[in-house]
C-alpha cells in the first residue's frame, strides 16, 4: 500500500483528501454515510465573526455539469461556533480546518485571533474569494493590494497553519499565489467558484436572488486544473487543488499538475461518499502504477517536462 501522508506547513495529513468549505456542512451531516475521521482533513463551512443570514432564496441553480450558488456565507458566527460546533468537531480524528471570512480586514483578523486559541483547529483557510457577499470576499481576492494586506495582518496574529483560498476570477492567478507566499501563508488552496449567472428564460428573470453566483462542479474542472498547474509552478508552498473533482482520475489530474492535496466540493452533495471513494481510489492508482507514495506523482507532468527538455 502506497504512502498517502502529506504535509502542509507544519501540519501532517494522513492522506491528501480534504472536503471543501460550504459543501460539507460541519461534518456531522456526513456521519451517517462514512467515518469522517478517515479523511485527511475537513474544511468547515465559511465562518464569520457575527452571525449571518446569507442571501435570499433562490440561492442555487443547476447548470450543465455544475451548479451556481449564492449562499452568501450563512453561519451562526464565532460565538456559536465555539460553544456548539467546536466541541463536536473536536472529536473527529482528522484535521479540522475553519474557513475564515469577513467584510473588512479587521473582521478577518479578529476571527483569526479567536480561532488561534482553539487547540483542536490546527489550520484556517482564509477565504478571500467568496463571490457571494456584497462587501469583502472576492473583492479581497481579486485586488493584489487588499489581498496582500489581509494576508499580512492575519499572518501577524495567527500562529498555526495558514491556507489562503484564491479566487479564479482574476487575469493572473500566479500573482495571488506569489503574494500569499510572500506574506507567509503556508499554502494556497484553489479554486473557489467562478462568478457566473443563469436566467430563467420562461420566467424572464435571474435564477438567483443575487443575479450572479459561484459556479462549481465538473464544468469548472479544466479551469481549476489549469490554475492549480500555474500556481504550483509559481510558488514553493504546497498548493491544495479543487474544482470539479468527482472521480479518482479527476483527483489524480490535480496531483499530476502539482497539487499536494485535493478538496472535494460539489460532488459530496450528490454522492456523499465521494471523498472516501476517491481516497481509496488514489491508493489503488498508486499501487497499480507501482508508486510507493503520493509524493511521487505530485507535479509529475512538470518534472517530466523538465526531463524531456
Amino acid at each position, binding site marked *: 500500500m502506497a504512502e498517502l501522508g502529506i504535509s502542509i506547513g507544519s501540519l501532517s495529513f494522513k492522506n491528501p483528501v480534504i472536503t471543501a468549505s460550504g459543501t460539507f456542512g460541519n461534518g456531522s451531516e456526513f456521519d451517517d454515510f462514512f467515518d469522517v475521521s478517515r479523511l485527511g482533513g475537513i474544511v468547515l463551512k465559511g465562518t464569520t465573526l457575527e452571525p449571518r443570514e446569507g442571501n435570499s432564496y433562490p440561492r442555487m441553480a443547476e447548470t450543465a455539469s455544475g451548479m451556481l450558488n449564492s449562499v452568501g456565507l450563512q453561519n451562526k458566527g464565532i460565538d456559536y461556533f465555539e460553544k456548539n460546533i467546536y466541541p463536536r468537531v473536536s472529536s473527529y480524528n482528522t484535521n479540522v480546518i475553519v474557513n475564515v471570512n469577513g467584510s473588512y480586514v479587521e473582521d478577518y483578523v479578529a476571527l483569526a485571533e479567536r480561532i488561534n486559541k482553539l487547540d483542536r483547529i490546527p489550520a484556517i483557510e482564509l477565504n478571500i474569494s467568496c463571490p457571494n457577499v456584497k462587501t469583502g470576499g472576492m473583492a479581497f481576492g481579486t485586488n493584489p493590494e487588499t489581498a496582500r494586506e489581509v494576508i499580512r495582518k492575519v499572518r501577524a496574529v495567527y500562529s498555526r497553519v495558514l491556507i489562503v483560498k484564491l479566487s479564479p476570477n482574476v487575469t493572473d492567478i500566479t500573482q495571488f499565489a506569489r503574494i500569499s507566499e510572500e506574506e507567509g501563508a503556508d499554502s494556497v488552496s484553489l479554486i473557489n467558484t467562478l462568478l457566473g449567472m443563469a436566467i430563467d428564460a420562461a420566467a424572464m428573470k435571474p435564477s438567483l436572488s443575487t443575479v450572479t453566483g459561484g459556479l462549481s462542479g465538473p464544468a469548472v474542472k479544466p479551469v481549476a486544473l489549469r490554475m492549480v498547474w500555474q500556481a504550483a509552478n509559481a510558488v514553493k508552498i504546497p498548493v491544495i487543488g479543487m474544482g470539479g473533482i468527482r472521480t479518482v482520475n479527476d483527483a489524480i489530474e490535480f496531483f499530476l499538475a502539482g497539487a499536494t492535496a485535493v478538496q472535494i466540493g460539489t460532488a459530496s452533495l*450528490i454522492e456523499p461518499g465521494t471523498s472516501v471513494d476517491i481516497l481509496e481510489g488514489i491508493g489503488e492508482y498508486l499501487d497499480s502504477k507501482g508508486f510507493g507514495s503520493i509524493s511521487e506523482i505530485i507535479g509529475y507532468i512538470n518534472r517530466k517536462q523538465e526531463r524531456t527538455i
Partner: protein
Amino acid sequence: MTKRIEDFTVTGNRFINKDIFLLELQAEGKLADLKPGQFVQVRVDGSPETFLRRPLSIHDADFERNTIKLLVQLAGKGTETLSRLQTGRKLNLIYPLGNSFTIPEQDEKILLIGGGCGVAPLLFLGKHLKSLGHSPEILLGFRNRERMIEYDEYMSIGPVSLATEDGSVGEKGFVTQHSLLAGKRFNRIYCCGPDRMMKAVAQYAFANGISCEVSLENLMACGFGACLCCVVDTVDGNQCTCIDGPVFNINKLKWQNSESA
C-alpha cells in the same frame, strides 16, 4: 433515523394521468424507518441535463413488502427520465430525508388538503393517521376531472371532498373556496400543493386559529443539510427546507397576509 444511500429496484412505473406517474420501488433489504412527510433524493442516471439529485416525497411505504411509492409529476428532463425507467432497473436513493408531519396525540378533527401532485406526501400521512386511530377528512383540488388522481386511495382513508377549477368534478373553484371549510371546524390541517394554494390555506388557518403544517418544495442541491441552498425565510431566520423542513408549521413561516406574494 439513519440516512442511507441505497439502490432500489423498480417494481412498477406507470402513468396515472397525462403528467403524473407512480413509481414503485423495492428496497434490497429492510426498508429504513420512515415517517410521513419525509422525502428521498433520487439520482437520475442517463440524463446529461440532470446534474443534481431530485427530491421526491415518500408517497406511500409498505414495511412488510419493503417498498415505497413515489408520485411524480413531469417537470423537466429529470422527471421525464424517471418516467421511462423500466421495471427491474435500479434507482439510487438517499433516504429518509427531512423532518415529518407532527402527529397529534389526542383525537382531533384533522383535514388533509392537497392540490395537484402536491397530494404526494398526504397518502402516506393519511394512512398513518388512520392506523393510529385518527379519522382524517380529505380535501383535494385539481385543475379538472382529467387531472384528478388516486381518489379511491384517499376514499379508503376517510371522506374525500373535491374541488376543481372548472367544476368538472366536485365543487367548482379552489380548495379554499370549498363549502367544507365554511361548514366544518377542524383543529388541524396538513397541506401540500402549489405555493399559492398553501399560502391561501395558511390564511384560512391563521384566520380561524387552526394548527396547520405545510410541506415546502424548495430547490435543493444536497437534501441533507450540507449546502444551505434550500433555505426558507422563517421567524427564526433562514432555515433549511431539507432538514428543518420540508414540513413547517405556518406559524414559523412569514406567510401572514402573503397570499398574493
